[in-house]
């Protein structure tokens, strides 16, 4: 029970120097320790990030040979005969494009529905938690689940079918589809946030001009959310580029890209391959390829791609966004 006798003095009375710069703040000891720890943690993180980049730069430049980027990987016992990693680079690009092509429109669609319609509300809540669950599921679990689904004969047209009708379930298609799931929550989140930052009166201004919901979304809300959408999609691409588990389980992680015989593009998408992440894993000392120098070189390329994507996110975030008074 607090004694009601002494009401605290109104704070207004003791702040005559409101416009002047704040005088010295006296910090308690606990605050000082807390600040010091936060400061130290920040510095430590910078050191770690810096040493990763520096080490990979050092290793990468040491082992990276431009010819590695343009030659196919080969099977060989001797490190000098195992070729380059052109196929993994192509695989990374192809898989990222596929995953993004699925995740971006689906993610934006979900975000628009949640933010602009969201009815019935039980369905909106269910969709919301669905997105959260997907976001929280480890990619290896998603991958195994994907394999289970895509090995059904119903999905046979998406991957290689062996004699005796056993569906392989592994292809750029199936890997791309599951990859889109790990990018999806980021697209949904960023788009939704951008939509919700648009004040209600902006939507109403469009309705007041006789526009319906659809054209308001298309002509006003989505253009105003470009920055958020761009950020979400780029972050999602970063996730896809960096994922290993899905590639191992669903892309086959074959050394070279192995298109299925038949039509060129369709065959390629039905075929298997690998990405930089699985290439690094396989050639690292723990993998089977045993070409650590090439693993370092490939890891360096991977790091460059990821840093580039981060840079793009930064660039988008710096763009001026339309702002209204609420």
């Amino acid at each position, binding site marked *: 029970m607090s004694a009601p006798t002494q009401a605290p003095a109104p704070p207004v009375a003791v702040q005559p120097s409101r416009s002047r710069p704040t005088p010295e703040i006296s910090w308690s000891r606990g605050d000082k320790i807390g600040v010091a720890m936060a400061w130290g943690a920040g510095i430590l993180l910078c050191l770690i990030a810096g040493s990763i980049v520096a080490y990979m730069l050092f290793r990468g430049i040491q082992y990276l040979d431009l010819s590695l980027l343009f030659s196919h990987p080969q099977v060989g016992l001797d490190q000098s005969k195992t070729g380059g990693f052109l196929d993994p680079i192509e695989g990374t690009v192809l898989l990222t494009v596929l995953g993004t092509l699925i995740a971006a429109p689906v993610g934006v669609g979900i975000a628009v529905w949640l933010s602009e319609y969201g009815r019935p509300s039980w369905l909106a809540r269910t969709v919301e938690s669905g997105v959260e669950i997907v976001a929280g599921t480890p990619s290896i679990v998603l991958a195994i689940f994907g394999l289970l689904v895509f090995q059904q004969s119903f999905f046979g047209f998406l991957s290689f079918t062996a004699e005796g009708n056993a569906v392989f379930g592994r292809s750029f298609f199936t890997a791309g589809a599951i990859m889109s799931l790990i990018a999806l929550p980021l697209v949904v989140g960023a788009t939704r946030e951008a939509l919700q930052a648009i*004040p209600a*009166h*902006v939507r*109403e*201004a*469009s*309705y*007041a*001009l*006789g*526009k*319906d919901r659809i*054209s308001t979304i298309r*002509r*006003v809300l989505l*253009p*105003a959310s470009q920055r958020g959408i761009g950020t979400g999609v780029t972050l999602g691409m970063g996730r896809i580029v960096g994922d290993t588990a899905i590639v191992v389980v669903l892309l086959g992680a074959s050394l070279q890209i192995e298109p299925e015989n038949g039509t060129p593009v369709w065959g390629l998408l039905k075929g298997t391959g690998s990405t930089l992440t699985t290439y690094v894993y396989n050639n690292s000392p723990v993998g089977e390829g045993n070409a650590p120098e090439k693993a370092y070189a490939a890891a360096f390329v991977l790091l460059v791609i990821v840093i580039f994507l981060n840079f793009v996110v930064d660039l988008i975030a710096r763009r001026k966004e*339309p*702002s*209204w*008074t*609420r």
Partner: protein
Amino acid sequence: MDPLSPLDGGTDPMREPMTVAAQLPPPVRRIVVETPPTAVSPPPPGSNGHSPHAMVAPSLRRMPRAQTTPIERMRTEALSIAYGEKLAVNQVSLSIRQGEVLALIGPSGCGKTTLLRSLNRLVDLTPGAIRGGRILLDGEDVDSFDVTLLRRRVGMLFQQPNPFPMSIFDNVAYGLRERGSKKPSRRQLETPVIEALHRAGLFEEVKDNLDHPALALSGGQQQRLCIARSLAIQPEVLLLDEPCSALDPISTQVIEETIVSLRTEIAIVIVTHNLQQAQRVADHVAFMYLGDLIEYGEAERVFGSPVAERTREYVSGGFG
């Protein structure tokens, strides 16, 4: 415009709730929404922040205006609107005429915005809002209209300028596009767009940058752009909800002049907390209090010799 008379522009009341009560007019929406409506008493004398000088300010004079013969375009008949249990507008019957400006005044939370938003059926979008009574546009019930068609005929301007994130040209052309099955070309749109910008008094300032983003304009220019955007689709009624409360005195004056000049072709309703503004632009005034229409009449009469006690208190609280 007299620099001594504080207009309701300049400061956003939402941002400085502490000082507002002392120095500025009272449209502090957030505070009112949070307190029970019965707590909203008519402002005591002086609390509106109008300095005593305002009494003699020339800005109290009515703006010069052309003679018109008003024609009734819209009317409400026993209009009531409730948000769930809460009655926001109670049995209001009003006539809105082309050829004159109708000012809706009253303390914060008395239902002005609600009434205004019901006229173009924007309240229909608020979940839980219920409407009773009738609203007629040219004798026809607004519920019988296709809502998009109704909103083309009854335009609206908001308190905060809200241009769309596109070029100045595209903002004004926004309402004209996607009308029919085939898209009008830019050349076809040019004439109506430029005309609308002229009527909103903005053309001279933007004629060389029609392709610049609209959100790069100043607040006052943005608000005039929003007027142009509404005018482009040739509305017959224009609803303005505190259109100048976020603007500087000069922009306010330009917009007031535009309003007065438009009234010959368009029936205009303006909600304002600035009684001086109401006096400058309005031909008729409606005073609302806690959802009821207390007094309605010619502007000079309502301000000069109000009949109802409430009106007298409110109006005198405003200027001495």
